[in-house]
């Protein structure tokens, strides 16, 4: 239960950072700008692609429905 609360707190933090970065642009980078920053290097672009592929593989081919 405590972990679930932490996950929701992290989600709220993500939303807050995103909203703050859009309302006050110099204060923080948006999520897209952060990804763009990572993508400035070829290695960063490779890492982003790998992470994206991993998420797809993990989420859509290896999921277990709760209670099944």
């Amino acid at each position, binding site marked *: 239960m405590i972990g679930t609360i932490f996950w929701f707190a992290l989600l709220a933090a993500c939303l807050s*950072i995103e909203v703050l970065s859009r309302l006050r642009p110099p204060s*923080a980078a948006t999520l897209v700008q952060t990804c763009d920053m990572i993508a400035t290097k070829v290695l960063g672009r490779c890492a982003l692609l790998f992470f*994206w592929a991993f998420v797809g593989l993990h989420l859509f081919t290896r999921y277990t429905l709760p209670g099944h």
Partner: protein
Amino acid sequence: MKRVALLALVAAVFAWWASGVTPFTTLAYILVAVATVCVVVNYVALGALSPQRPQISRYYQARAEDTSFRRWAPWMGVVLLALTLEIVGLSLGGRSATVPTVSTMLDHLLLYHWSRAVLYFLWLSVGIWPVVRLSQRTQQGEPQ
């Protein structure tokens, strides 16, 4: 614009079909592999993974605007906290009710076909969008 709309439609149909496939089957793996290969091949074709294309790096640098640590430190903090939580969840067996992993949390969102289709479409969009964006820039003459 027409091309993007058509691409979105194809992605939506693909997401609906692929999200109905039973997990842990060969077809489920093939469908994710097909989507991944399509994105990677197009990204490579645009030269995005070539070290001989500094224009691509400059393009991302311009999009990122200010790349100082202060600006992206909040995201770094969130990622570190998420990693810590994930490691704690995994060390508790991965299916702990006290500290669930992010996969266990997301499994609840995958209960219904429509919610799986929405997530699948979002995942596809996240992969396809940078390719579309870069391809549009290339057509406009930058980066070459």
